[in-house]
Every structure is written in C-alpha cells, then in structure tokens.
C-alpha cells in the first residue's frame, strides 16, 4: 500500500503542480487570477477523448494535437477577453469565471454530462517489490516530472525565464529593462495553459472525463497557491505535492472517507495560514511602488 500511496501521491501532486505553477506564473506576470485555468485542463481531457476514442487517432498524435490546440485556445482567450481588461482585477475575475462556464457548457452541449473513459497509451504493469504498478501510471509520473523539470530549467536558466520572473516581481522595472511586458505575459499564458493541457491529457486515462472535472482541481489549485505563498513558484510546487499526498493518504487510509480528501487538504491550508499567514514561501506584503 505504501508504494501505491507513493505512486499516486506523486502523480496527483505532480498534476496539481503542473496546474498550480501555471496558475502562479500567470498570476505573477500579469496579475490575473485565472479562474478558467483548470477549465483548460478539462477541455484538454475532452480533446484527447475526442481524438483518440472517437476519431481513433494514434494516442501520441492525439496528445500532441490536444496540447497544441488547447494552448492556442488559451492564447486566443488571453488576447481577446483578458488582455483588454487586464488592469481591472475584479473584471478579470468575472471574465475568467465566464470563460470557464462557456467551456463547461459547450462541453455539456456536445458530449452531454456522461462520464467518459479514455484508454491509456500503455497497458500492462510492472512489479516493483511485489506491488503492481501499471505502465500508464509510471509513464504519467515520468512525463509529469519531466515537464516540471523543463519548466524549472526554463525559469532558472534561460533569458525568457529571467524575463518572466523579473516581470512577475516588478512589471515596471522589467519594462524599464527593455522587456515587452505584454509579450512576456502572452508567452507566460501560453506556457501556463500548455502545462494545464498536459495535466489534462495525462489525467484523462487515469480518471474519468466529465464536464465538471475542473472544479475540484480549481479549489485545490487555489489552496495550493495560498498554502505555498502567493506568487511563489517554489511554494506552488511544494504545496502541490503536500496536498497531492494528503489527498492520496486520505483516499487510501480512509476507504469510506474518500469524500473527505478535499476537507483534509483545505484544513492543512488553514493550519499553515494560521501559523504563517504569508504561506510557506511567500514574502510578507511590501509596498509595491
């Protein structure tokens, strides 16, 4: 059971990390609270369901197509409905809720509210110390860690990464250093949505695909971001794994209490906030200008 908890915890934590880091990035760079963030994850799951189950495309091609299309949709949404009102925080909040609702209702109209399944890329399983771990789980885990590693590398080692972090910390000074803040926000949005889409295509074979599948992750992402410290990428990463493992532990240790997984996670968030109001890696608020 420990191995199962470990594998599932890593996968859930990893997918939450994909979502939460993207959410933090776009919040940091463009000051957008993107409620629609996990809705991109949901439509990515539907795209892969359509491409592989309905149209019978090769799974790899389906994955690629889904991620690319969702990323483009994300950029379109940013350009058309977020950017023009970017400086009005409350309006952005409302608009992104609206975008999420539009996605959800569209999916409901096209596919209905049924639970859909999606075949994995691999079948079979591996025995590690007498425990069966399916290849699909292993593959998911590897891909998640790989994507996280690449993101980490981009943020820490590349010119673009420096620009993204600089913009997140001080947009005005970033602008003064010659960074085109609008373009960087657009690129960040693309990266963030792409990460969410990868999360969506990875989770589709392991779980059910349904129109409301974005709500629970959204609550978790908000909790993770607050837990880790608003705007802190490291905080989002660690917070994601903390809550991912919490959920998995609750599901495995309390077989009848699986519905409590959200409650436990949010409880942890509240405890952390009581002890450290700025979150694990957040900085206490400073005057911005």
């Amino acid at each position, binding site marked *: 059971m420990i191995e199962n908890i470990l594998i599932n915890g890593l996968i859930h934590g990893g997918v939450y990390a994909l979502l939460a880091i993207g959410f933090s990035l776009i919040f940091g760079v463009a000051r957008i609270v993107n409620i629609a963030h996990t809705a991109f994850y949901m439509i990515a799951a539907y795209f892969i369901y359509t491409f592989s189950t309905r149209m019978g495309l090769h799974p790899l091609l389906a994955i690629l197509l889904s991620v690319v299309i969702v990323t483009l949709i994300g950029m379109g949404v940013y350009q058309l409905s977020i950017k023009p009102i970017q400086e009005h925080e409350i309006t952005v909040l409302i608009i992104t809720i609206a975008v999420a609702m539009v996605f959800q209702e569209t999916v409901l109209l096209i596919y209905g509210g049924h639970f859909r399944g999606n075949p994995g890329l691999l079948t079979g399983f591996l025995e590690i110390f007498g425990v069966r771990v399916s290849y699909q789980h292993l593959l998911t885990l590897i891909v998640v860690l790989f994507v996280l590693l690449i993101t980490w590398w981009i943020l820490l080692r590349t010119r673009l990464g420096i620009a993204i*972090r600089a913009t997140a910390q001080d947009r005005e000074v970033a602008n003064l250093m010659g960074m085109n803040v609008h373009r960087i926000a657009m690129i960040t949005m693309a990266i963030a949505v792409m990460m969410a889409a990868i999360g969506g295509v990875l989770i589709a074979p392991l779980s059910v695909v349904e129109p409301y599948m974005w709500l629970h992750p959204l609550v978790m992402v908000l909790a993770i971001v607050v837990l880790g410290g608003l705007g802190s990428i490291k905080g989002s990463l660690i917070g994601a794994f903390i809550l991912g493992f919490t959920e998995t532990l609750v599901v495995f240790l309390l077989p009848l209490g699986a519905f409590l997984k959200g409650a436990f996670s949010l409880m942890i968030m509240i405890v952390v906030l009581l002890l450290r109001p700025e979150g694990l890696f957040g900085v206490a608020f400073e005057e911005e200008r």
Partner: protein
Amino acid sequence: MLLEVHHLSVCYDTAMILNDLSLSVGEQELVSVAGPNGAGKTTMLRAISGLVRWEKEILRGSRYGDITIEGRVHFSGERIDQLPAHEIAERGLLLCPERRRPFREMTVIENLMAGAYLLKDKEAIKEHLLTVFRLFPVLKERSRQVSGTLSGGEQQMLAIGRALMSRPKLLCIDEPSTGLAPLLRKEVFQKISEVRDSGIPVLLVEQEVSTVFKMANRNYVLSSGKIIAEGTAQELLQDEVLRKTYLGL
C-alpha cells in the same frame, strides 16, 4: 544634444505635475536635476523613460482619471515620447528607478542578467558583466546572494549595475542617495561620476545638492514642475535667493 526635452507637461487628472519643462543632456555630460519634494523630479524621469505613458494606458477608463502628456522628447535625434517604455530602453535610454527596486527574490547575478535582457550576444554580456564587476566589486562578491537581502548601498550599486548591463547611451538615475548613510552616499556619487568618466552620460535627479552640483557638468533646479534655474554649480550658487530658498545651502 543626446537628450532633448521640449515643453513637456504632465497632468494627473487635474493636477499639473510638470509644466512646460525643457531640458537637455549632451554626450559625455553629467547633468543633475535638483528641487524640493513634490517638484516633479521623479515624474519627469518617468515621463522621459515612457513609464507615464504606460501608466496612462493602464489607468485609461479607471476611476483615477486620465493622464495627459504634452510636449516632445528627442533622443539621439529620434522622437521617443510616443514609444512604449521597452522600446525606449531598446534605444539606449535606461532609467535606474527611485528606491532602487531590485528584483528582490532573484540573485545578484540574475538581476544583472535581467538588465542584460536586450543583449543577445553572450560574449557582449560577459564583457559588460566584467565591466560592471570592475566598477562594483561588491556585486561580484555577492553574486549568488538573493538581492532582497543586500544592504541599501549594495542594492543601489546593483540597481545601477543592472541598468549598465545593456551598455546604455544615457543613464537616468532617480535619487540614488535615498536612505543611505553619508559615507555610502559619497561612494555612490563617486561611482556615478566614474560612470560618466567611462563615457556614459548621466541624468541624475538628486536632492543632495552640495555634493552633486560639484561633480555635475550642468544643473537644473526644478520647482512645482518648472525649471526655475539652470547652470554650473558656480553660477547657481552665486544666486543668494536660489541658494537659500531652493537648495537649502
């Protein structure tokens, strides 16, 4: 002249911050702008570097009211007042902002790399990094340290170093002495005149007139958004009224 500002006026809603301001900075020059609090010194630099225009776009249609900007700014013969801030930086006019504002969660070296964003040539970046380290050896010692934990003086050096990384044609510095001990102020001013001596002209906004006037080639005195006097330290200090009322000397 390298930088020429013609009849620049800036209004925030109904408050006039800059009123028909004209000034210029030539090649090889260190020009200072002094004046009491609220005279519009910071707004002037923000207008020149394109930040006021940026702010105007952000605030458009908000409850804070509109910003109006009038006048022209020319930089190396090109009109720049219609350009967004990042393109002004691209043309070589860099502002080192008030209160230093390093990227606090990034290390010193990352801050410098952010300053070198405009350069794509790795060799050039390396070369400029060496130049900056030569000017500010303390930055080299602290290069792996997170910049938020630096002392005020070191942060100021970092802010200037960061702005120098792209080898600007003109460096504007806003109040570098704020919050620094007298000894550190002296060091910062010393470094700024070294920057000028290395061939990069400087437009320096600073309240500490006694030191700055002596090292600057020319000085302006700004009050209520207007230039009220201009000249060398000697010329300005001869004027009794100016000295007592505006410069506090």
